[in-house]
């Protein structure tokens, strides 16, 4: 590939970024770690690790309860984190940022609260054939209980949504259109505006699974025009155990609570209870305090690097990887071309099962994902059981792509007996 020599500024910036991620210093099987499993979870930078450490060392206390100093400090740090996370995705208010465990729990929250209150026989929920199991199974479970119909937008052979039948799929019975912003397998960036417009035209609500977009590209939840947007902290340099549900205020106000317990109530009497205000109505029990504070540190860090920069850097990586990987004999890339995808590439290599491939690459210190990536219907659609996936983040380099490609060639040789 005719890549231009990177500018000294760029080289310097990438080196500074990598220095913030301690895990990148380690070796695996005697080789420097090349971490290309970022769609599964990302590595954590020092500011996030330090934020967790500081909370536990200096002001570990429960939030929203105590009058003592530590509890006030913990509450302030936790709520300030919510505020910065709200700004990060341009939510109109931190009250509309509900903390959950992850994107999966956020979708389940919507299903159990909004879904139970609004879905019944004769109604339809529309998803797509490229959804992660987290945006399929909650609706299937609910469908059995409430008797609505679950439909899906099919895929084209190129790995994009087939919108030719959209007018019929979105109809007067449609109550919710729930779809992934960027596919965790195909990499496809879906046409949000088109889908939102179709949903709006029939008065349906919209949920966007932004687990693979918020970490990688500037996302403005108001500009997306969705009613609900969900994402996970651990896929954006934050800790595990913290995720977000953004919702339109009037919907969140109307929705019944999710889990019952402490913190989500205003008044409890044995004869009945009243619910707390947003966002606490949906946050029963002691929350993931350290993790919320850690996610706040993560968005500060991503802002400091620049989410635009991250997106552009991933564009460079994915274009280069697409071109280089296409030249490996027997390698088939799933999904659209590099210009229509986010920073990940799922693929198969003829004659080498994805698990064997991942094991061979691991011997060279290269971490990729192998399996169905929690998207079995998508794999069924293309007649596959599993695929391998390399997914990038801000700290990956073109040299790492070269090593990945060399590892793929080696796998071809091992299996060429």
């Amino acid at each position, binding site marked *: 590939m005719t890549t231009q020599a990177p500018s000294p500024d760029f080289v310097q910036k990438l080196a500074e970024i990598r220095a913030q991620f301690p895990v990148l210093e380690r070796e695996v099987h005697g080789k420097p770690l090349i971490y290309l499993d970022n769609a599964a979870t990302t590595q954590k930078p020092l500011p996030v690790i330090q934020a967790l450490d500081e909370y536990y060392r200096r002001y570990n206390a429960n939030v929203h309860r105590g009058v003592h100093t530590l509890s006030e400090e913990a509450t302030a740090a936790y709520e300030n984190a919510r505020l910065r996370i709200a700004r990060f995705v341009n939510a109109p208010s931190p009250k509309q940022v509900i903390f959950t465990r992850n994107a999966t729990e956020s979708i389940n929250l919507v299903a159990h609260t909004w879904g139970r209150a609004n879905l019944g026989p004769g109604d339809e929920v529309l998803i797509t054939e490229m959804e992660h199991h987290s945006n399929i199974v909650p609706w299937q479970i609910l469908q059995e209980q409430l008797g609505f119909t679950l439909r899906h937008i099919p895929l084209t052979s190129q790995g994009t949504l087939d919108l030719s039948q959209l007018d019929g799929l979105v109809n007067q019975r449609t109550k919710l259109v729930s779809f992934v912003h960027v596919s965790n397998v195909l990499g496809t960036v879906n046409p949000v505006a088109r889908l939102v417009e179709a949903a709006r035209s029939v008065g349906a609500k919209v949920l966007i699974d932004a687990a693979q977009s918020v970490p990688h590209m500037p996302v403005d939840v108001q500009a997306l025009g969705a009613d609900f947007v969900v994402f996970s902290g651990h896929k954006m340099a934050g800790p595990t155990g913290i995720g977000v549900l953004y919702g339109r205020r009037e919907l969140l106000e109307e929705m019944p609570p999710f889990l019952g317990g402490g913190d989500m109530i205003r008044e409890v009497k044995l004869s009945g209870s009243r619910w707390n205000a947003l966002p606490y109505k949906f946050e029963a029990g002691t929350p993931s305090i350290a993790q919320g504070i850690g996610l706040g540190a993560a968005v500060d860090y991503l802002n400091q690097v620049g989410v635009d920069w991250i997106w552009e850097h991933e564009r460079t990586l994915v274009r280069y990887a697409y071109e280089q990987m296409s030249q490996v004999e027997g390698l088939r890339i799933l999904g659209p071309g590099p210009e229509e995808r986010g920073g990940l590439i799922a693929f198969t290599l003829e*004659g*080498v*099962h*994805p*698990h*064997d491939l991942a*094991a*061979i690459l691991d*011997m060279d210190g290269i971490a990729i994902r192998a*399996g*169905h990536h929690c998207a079995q219907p998508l794999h069924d659609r293309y007649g596959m*059981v*599993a695929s391998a996936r390399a997914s990038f983040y801000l700290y990956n380099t073109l040299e790492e792509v070269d090593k990945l490609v060399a590892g793929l060639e080696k796998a071809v040789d*091992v*299996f060429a*007996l």
Partner: protein
Amino acid sequence: MDQLYREAIIDHYKHPRHKGHLPDPDIHYHDTNPFCGDEVTIELKVEDGVVVDAAFDGRGCAISQASASMMMEEIIGMPVEELRQWTKEDILDMLGIEIGPVRLKCALLPLKALKAGLWGLEEWPE
């Protein structure tokens, strides 16, 4: 990697022995590994308590399929009672490689199917 993917493993994967189906098997058992999507079906012909013929069918990674192929060669001629006592160690000796906990499930899938069949477990309906 030379350890995990030694030549014999690749050879059995690419040229599986006793792959297919028996005309009239006495024992038939199908099992899957949902983590990988590996599948193995084992068929046995048993006479006087001895396995006289065996075949497997399946798809999946090199470890699971080579394990099944090697196992077919081993078990033909062996008494059922002895095979019922087979353990993980017998399979690892047969494969001759070291396997981490995640891939162990692949290596042991054929054994799981074999023992389930030999002990007369009913197949889990698909």
